[in-house]
């Protein structure tokens, strides 16, 4: 998943560099694709959070999970309202499918862990996941978005994702000290 997302990011970057400055680069990801990626990415982290809330007894892990779950639910609500208003139907694509499939594999791994091992793996995964999503927002999704409102939504989402990443790093450090 991450490899594919990174490849998509690289394709957009290369396409932008290869064209004359005056010519706008053709989007390699459509707005319908972006909508599907946004909803998929949010849903994945909600599912990770649900797993943490079901398995962890660590107060800070649970607090983090509740926060990210609530935030990603809010983003999905906003994205759903926007695509409905714009008449865009989210279109699953290779990146979204890979995100979903890789997350399923990761959840199975996390599900078999307990206690500190789970908390550490969950926190580490949140760092990796939010790093990837933040990179995708900056390098692929925002540059590719054609609709101004969709682009604005991605820009508005970015601070929450960045805050999650910072918080996940702090959480990992706290779990490691336990």
């Amino acid at each position: 998943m991450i490899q594919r997302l990174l490849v998509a990011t690289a394709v957009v970057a290369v396409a932008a560099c290869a064209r004359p400055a005056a010519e706008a680069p053709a989007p390699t990801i459509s707005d319908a694709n972006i909508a599907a990626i946004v909803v998929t990415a949010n849903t994945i982290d909600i599912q990770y959070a649900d797993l943490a809330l079901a398995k962890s007894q660590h107060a800070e892990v649970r607090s983090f999970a509740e926060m990210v779950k609530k935030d990603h639910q809010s983003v999905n609500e906003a994205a759903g309202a926007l695509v409905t208003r714009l008449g865009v139907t989210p279109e699953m694509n290779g990146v979204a499918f890979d995100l979903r499939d890789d997350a399923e594999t990761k959840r199975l791994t996390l599900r078999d862990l307990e206690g500190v091992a789970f908390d550490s793996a969950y926190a580490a995964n949140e760092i990796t996941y939010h790093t990837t999503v933040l990179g995708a927002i900056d390098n692929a999704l925002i540059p590719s978005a054609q609709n101004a409102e969709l682009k604005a939504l991605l820009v508005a989402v970015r601070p929450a994702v960045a805050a999650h990443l910072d918080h996940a790093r702090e959480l990992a450090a706290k779990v490691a000290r336990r």
Partner: protein
Amino acid sequence: MSRARVVIAALALVAAVACGAAAASMRTSGRTEIAMRGNSFRPRRAEILVGDTVVWVNRDIVRHDAVKPGLFDSGELRGGESFAWVAADTGLIEYRCTIHQRMRGELLVRPAK
């Protein structure tokens, strides 16, 4: 209309405009807006007077709240929603968003002039 009456009417008009402007200014100065944006309270610290109204407006996509136990609790605010509270006493109030632990703000409430 005599010249004296014209002058009195003009003075009355100026006074009325001045009073209106002053009233409008007081209403504006008695209201402080705090934006919830980028997972922060902006401004993070605000100085207000007793009797002033503080209005928190969520400018983010994610939900926030503004809570000081015993004083105010906005409840969860979606993007675009707001919450108003009137300061009744002086003092330093440290409040926070209960959803985002690191999102904190301060109100310094001074006596009304």
